[in-house]
Every structure is written in C-alpha cells, then in structure tokens.
C-alpha cells in the first residue's frame, strides 16, 4: 500500500514545471471503533479513508488543494486547483517545498501485523471486558458513560519536486473508559486508558481500574477556599501542559512575534530541574514517527536543558526564514491541511521520586487530577494561564479531601520557573507528549 501511495505522490510531484515546485501528501487510514454499553455493543464503526493534499509554490506564491478520493481525474483536478490557488498568494522568498537534507530517517518499526490481523470479534470482546472491569472495580461505580476500543492502521507518503520521497506506516490502538461513581447525591467522573501498537499490549484492567479510581476518589468533593499553594500535576495533566509549552517554542510563533520566548535563547526560562525534549524517534512515544509531515527525518531536539532554552522547532519554511536548518518539525492534521510547525513527542527528563514521595514532602498543596478549559483560559501569546481543576488537597504530606469547581492560575512563564520537582513516573499517553508527575510552587487556586 505505502508503495502505491508513494507512486501517486511522486507522479503528482513530477507535474512540477518551469518556476514552480510541488509537494504531494497521500494518506490511507483504516479504523475500527467499538463502544460497549450495558453489556452490549452500542456501536461498531469500520471505515477506511484516504486522500491527497497538494501544495504548489509558484515563484514564491503558495497554493493548496485537497481531495478525499484518489482517482486519476480527481488527483489531476486537485493539482490544477492548487496551481490556480497559488496565483492569489503573496510572494514570499522563503516559501518552498522540502528538499533532502542528508539526514537519514531512523529505522523505526511502528507497524504491527498483529493489529491488522486482529479479528473484529476480539475487538468487541475487549470493549465489553473494559466495561465489565470498570463496573466491577468498585461498588460505587454506578455506570460507564463510555467504554471504547479504537484502532488505526495508517500509511502515508510524501514526495516533492525537489527529491523528497518518503513513506510511513504505523499501527496504534487504545482502550478508554469514562466511569460514573455515585455516593448519596454526589456523582463524579473519571477516565482511564491503555495504549499500544497492537491489542496484545492493551490492558482493560489498567484502564478500567484507573477510571474507577479517578471517579471514586473525587466522591464528596467540594469547592475550596481560594489560596496560593503548591500544585502537583498528575502525569496526564502535565502532558496537556507540555502541549501548550510546545506551541510557544514553534519557530513560526517566534518569527511572527507570537512567542513568549522569542528573545530568550540560551537564557534560563525554567527551573534547573526542567529538561524538555521533543523526540519523535523514541519508539515508545504514541506519536513516534521517523519522518515529519514534509518527508524529512525527525530527530531528537533538546528544547530546554536544565532550565535553559536551547532550541525552537522549525519546518522547511521557518528554517529558511530564520536562516537555520529544519529540525524535522513539520506537522499536519491530515491530507486536508498544509504542513505547519509543531512538536511531535514532548517529554520531560524524569526525576528520581515517585508521586507519593513528592506529595509526602508538601505541607499545603493540591494534587490536580483533571483540568478543563485549556482552550478557553490559556493564552499562549500573553502567557495567561487559568484552568478549571479537580483533585485532592494535600495536607501535611498526605492527600486529603477531594476538591472540585476551582481554578488554578499563573502564567506560562511563571509555571516553568516555579517547577519544584519532576517525578520519576514518565509514561507515554495517547497524545504528542509524555506524562510525568510535576510539582509547581506558588499557584493561585480560586474557589470560594
């Protein structure tokens, strides 16, 4: 399959002509999703999707078009449309498609035939087991809002008229449970998941018990009085925070005057315990990939080392404009979009102590299990940071009463500088960042 996708991409890239370059990205994805509810299959979706995105750069002007079918006529029309669109773009001397940069992609093996061959009835059984395990984990779990198995077999190819020709192939699957726990009049929710490259790596037990545990430990939660305290972010919450930090380090944000850290290269932007790396070549990362969205090799990029800013992320365009080399950081949401700059697989270098040990050293704090409103209360340009939070109070080194309906607030700049400790519990989650316990001092909790 990948080879036929590459044939299409190369054929389109070959239509480049006098004064214009072409990039074609072709993708094919097969997905299954099973949802269990009350011991039955609520829904089962089996689908394949494919498409092409064509980018034309004509004398510095860029045009793009996409189509969700790969028949010859549509592909040709998509190319024509992209070429026509390029007439309306502004001239940008740095615009262009990627060319080979001599960096060999890592030989990552991200494809598991076990997934492709896994029978549908076994997928159904996994989803049903997940619901069963979640319900059985605790008598206070009164319902499972959703228990889901999902997988994907994804293949893509990208080719440019400057000689890039690359393919990628990967499998991935996960189990996700959302539980409802009830005690007297109080209802709380919790989630749990398990991820893998093939179903043999999944654990319904882990996902189900995590979902039950997260919901039941919040039972009886109440709003708390406002105060400043140390927050301990659960690994999942840290991963979401890293996603925001990654956006501020994109070369595009830097060049366009939208990065908090634009003028801070080689300065201390975080606590000395903070080392942040983007590394899509780590095969353990859920979003690992040997090539980026422009077909260049991904590589390990130290962004912040011991608190000091070391690098920004660049794709071909932003690298040219900044006078540096691409860091292999082109990302795209699929064939329907042009590539942009972004992190692939962020992680903090773990510390030496477990979450329990970190909590034991905190006199007055909040263990944050979940956050909401990251899209509505965080501004990656100004740095303002304010999110809804729920979790457990920490008193005298132990977790205490559950808390809900509060916000935690600071600024992105302060959060990085106020990092007190990074935990030892690094885990890859179904997103482009790894989770790890993270303690941050002096955060405002707003409640009553």
């Amino acid at each position, binding site marked *: 399959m990948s080879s036929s996708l590459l044939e299409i991409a190369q054929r389109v890239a070959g239509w480049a002509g006098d004064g214009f370059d072409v990039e074609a990205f072709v993708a094919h994805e097969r997905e299954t999703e099973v949802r269990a509810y009350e011991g039955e299959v609520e829904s089962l979706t089996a689908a394949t999707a494919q498409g092409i995105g064509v980018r034309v750069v004509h004398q510095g002007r860029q045009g793009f078009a996409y189509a969700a*079918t790969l028949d010859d006529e549509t592909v040709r029309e998509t190319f024509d449309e992209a070429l026509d669109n390029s007439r309306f773009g*502004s001239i940008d001397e740095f615009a262009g498609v990627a060319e080979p940069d001599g960096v060999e992609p890592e030989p990552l093996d991200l494809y598991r035939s076990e997934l492709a061959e896994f029978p549908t009835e076994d997928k159904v059984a996994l989803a049903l087991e997940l619901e069963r395990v979640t319900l059985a984990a605790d008598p206070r779990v009164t319902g499972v809002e959703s228990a889901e198995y999902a997988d994907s077999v994804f293949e893509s190819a990208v080719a440019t008229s400057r000689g890039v020709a690359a393919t990628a192939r990967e499998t991935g699957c996960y189990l996700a449970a959302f539980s*409802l726990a009830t005690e007297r009049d109080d209802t709380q929710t919790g989630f749990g998941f398990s991820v893998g490259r093939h179903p043999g790596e999944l654990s319904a037990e882990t996902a189900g018990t995590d979902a039950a545990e997260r919901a039941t430990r919040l039972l009886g939660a109440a709003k708390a009085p406002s105060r400043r305290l140390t927050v301990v972010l659960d690994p999942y919450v840290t991963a979401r925070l890293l996603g925001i930090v990654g956006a501020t380090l994109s070369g595009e944000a830097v060049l366009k005057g939208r990065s908090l850290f634009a003028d801070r290269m080689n300065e201390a932007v975080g606590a000395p315990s903070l080392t942040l790396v983007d590394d899509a070549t780590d095969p353990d990362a859920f979003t690992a990939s040997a090539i980026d969205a422009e077909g260049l090799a991904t590589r390990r990029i130290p962004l912040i080392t011991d608190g000091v800013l070391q690098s920004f992320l660049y794709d071909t365009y932003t690298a040219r404009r900044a006078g540096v080399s691409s860091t292999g950081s082109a990302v795209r949401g699929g064939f329907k979009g042009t590539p942009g700059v972004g992190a692939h697989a962020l992680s903090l270098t773990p510390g030496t102590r477990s979450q329990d040990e970190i909590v034991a050293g905190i006199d007055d704090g909040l263990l944050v299990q979940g956050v909401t*409103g990251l899209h*509505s209360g965080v501004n990656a340009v100004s740095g303002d940071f304010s999110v809804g939070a729920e979790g457990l109070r920490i008193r005298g080194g132990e977790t205490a009463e559950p808390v809900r*309906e509060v916000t935690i607030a600071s600024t992105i700049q302060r959060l990085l500088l106020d990092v007190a400790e990074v935990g030892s519990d690094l885990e890859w989650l179904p997103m482009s960042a790894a989770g790890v316990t993270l303690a941050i001092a002096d955060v405002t909790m707003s409640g009553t």
Partner: protein
Amino acid sequence: MLEAELVNRTLSVAMRTGADFAEIFAEERRSSSAILDDGRVEEVVSGRDRGAGIRVVVGETTGFAHTADLTETGLAAAAGAAAAAARQSGGARRIVEVSSLDVPRPLTVRVPPEDVPKSTKVALLTAADAAARSTGSAITQVSARYGDGRRRILVADSDGLFTSDDQVRTLFSVSCVATGDTGMQTGRESAGRTAGFELFDLYDVEEMARRAAQRALTKLTARPAPSGEMPVVVGPGGGGVLFHEACGHGLEADLVAKSASVFAGRLGERVAAPMVTLIDDGTMAGEWGHYGIDDEGKPAARNVLISGGVLTDYMWDRLRARKEGRASSGNGRRQSYQHLPMVRMTNTYITNGDADPDDIVADTTHGVYVAQLGGGQVNTATGDFVFGMTEAYLIENGEITAPIREGNLIGNGPEVLTRIDALGNDFAMGSPGTCGKDGQGVPVGDGTPTLRVTALTVGGTAA
C-alpha cells in the same frame, strides 16, 4: 447526489440480514479558504470531500461504515460492512422502498461563494490587515482568515425517508497581537452566518479588524484578574456560551439517558431562576447553527428547553427518541459522513428580560463585567463548567473600570441557573462557534441579553 433506485438497492443490502433500521447519509462538501498572516496571503486553499455513511441498527447495536466510493459497488460494500458490524443474528429479509419526496427548501443564499472570484476574497484579508495596523504601531501582528463551505447532504432510511439539504456557510475572523511594556496581548473578532458572500453586507471587515486591534490594545493595560467568588455581569451575546456549557450539553438526551447529566430526571422541575427561558432553535435563518434538515433528515425545529425557569424538554436525536417512543427534536447532527450522528445543539439562546443593561451594571457594587467570551467546557455528570473571558473589566461601585487579563470562570450549572438575578432587554446573538463533543465539531450559535450571576468563581491570580 444519489438516485432513489440506487438508494433502495443499497438500503436493501443493509437490511438483508435482518435489521431494525438502516440509513444512508451522503454528503458532498466543497470549501475554500484564504489565510493572511504576518502581512502576507499565506495560502489559498480549496477542498472537496464526498462520501456516504451507512448506519444499521439491530436491537441496541449500531453498525456503521463509511465510504468515499459512491458507486453501487462502493455503497454495497459499506452497507454490508455496517450490517456485519451490527452483528445480525438472522431475521427476516426486508425490501426497502424509498420514494423521492424531496422538497428542496428555498435557497436562502443570495451570493454563492463559489461565484465570487478568489481575488475578491483575498482583498478582504488585506483590507483587514491594513485596518488593524492603522490603529497604531503597538499592533505588531495581524492574521485574518476567510472561509466558505457548501455542504449538500442526502438522507434516506428504511422507514422510507428520502430528503436532502444544501447548506452554505461563510466565516471571517481577524486576530491581532499588541505589544507593550507588559508583554503581548491578543484580540480577536469573528463573524459567520449560514449564508453566502452577502455576509459582508452585514459585516465590515475593516471595522471588525479595528475592534480586534482595540481589544488587544486595551488588554496591554489589563490587571491580573481577581480570584474568588463574585457577581459577574455578562454582556449581550456573550452569555450564550455560558448557557451552552451550564445546561445546554446537560439537556442532550444521549447524556441524560446514560445518567451522565445533572439534569436527568428533572423534567417539570424548577431548574433556573423564573426569568430564564432557554430555547434551542435550528430554524433561525442565517444564524451559524441553522439548517433545513438535521443529519438524520429531520427538519430543524424551535425547541423550548426551559420555560420560566422550569425544565420542559431535552434535545433528541433519532435513536434516543425512538427508545422513548417520541419524535426526534431535529438535533441529530454529525461532523461529516465519516461520523455517527448524536444529539447536538443548534442556536441556543436565552430570551430577553426587561432590565436596562446599564442599570444591571449600576446596581453591581463589585464584580466583573465580561464583554467577550472565548469558549468553555462542561462535565455534564457533575455540572461543573468553565468558560473563558477574552475581554473583561472590573466593576467597581456600579461602574465598569479597569480591564483585566484573560482567564477562566468556573461554576456549577444547576447552581448558576438559579443565581441569575438580572436579565437585560438587549438580546444579541454571540460569535459563531464550533461545538466539540466526542471528537466531533459542528457549527453552533448562541445568544443572550446582558445578564448577571450573583456568584461565579473568577479564576485569576489577584487577591
């Protein structure tokens, strides 16, 4: 898009192994967009997408498959896959007969975007860029986006339904960065309607750009937002997001049926202050959440959800309604043919009260005035919700005073509904939004008059 005969044969394949219900949802989507950033028109994009999703229901189980191949072979393969997914256990063979009863609704689009030259669309972007930058040198960055989309859908099912719709939406937004001694701040303005290029008869993009720029400039002098519970006044239009999160999602019947809503089992009860009447209305022509039929073929409707503070109904899609033996309320929507439909809002709004909005502010000794909101999120099972403020001010001694920095507010839906103690007479619709649920985004509108909540927690950092 598809002939009735082909639809009949495909539905027959879907029903062949015995099913309670089968449906074809075919969609053809064309879109164009143009983006300006950093003073340049960065990209002009066109896209097209077409395909069909086939749903087969057996008992409690839904099987679903989709395909981009709209030939008889492609549709039959998807129908077979959906039927297999629904795990048939035998049953009678049914022949489906749909008849073409399609009554096209009068096309409300005056200027189809596909007839407008790309250069005209691009000119809007450059005009907005220039207008934003003309407000002062503190405006250091501007981006603007134009987008239009035409979505033609056809829905046919084993109950004999065969219907279609043609939905055109046009959107424009502009975002600015202002830089000062205190760092950078942002301002955004957007306009969108279920309409064609005539959107720009109603909205002047230069005016929008100047407002976005002014918003960013104002925030350069903003103080940290306060922290803690206090009265919050939300300006006209903006409060729709608050209701969308505080109770809109909680009134979606799929969540109610799973007891994942704090509003489950509360029909007929007082759930809000007596002045609150909440309506979800997909028939509001031109509004962002408007359509002719929903994505299950049911005509859009005006549904009263809360009347005088009393909960009168939930919102329904076909599956949930069928279980309850009632009709769908026309709220079955999906992001595309690649998705299963579920219960979604359309245009959700609170009707006017009788207070003068100036009096509401004058009557507030101390609190926060939110002029523009920036989205939100809710946990329907607990009712806790957040929404962001992207333009807000302190209220001191009955007057709107200093601007404050961005942040979230947090509250609990059932509590907040009863804490509304003032509703203005200045109803307005808010900005066009994309509502996300279970990974699917759909366009929604909302609206409110000026309103006051006696206590909400403002999530800032100032004491």
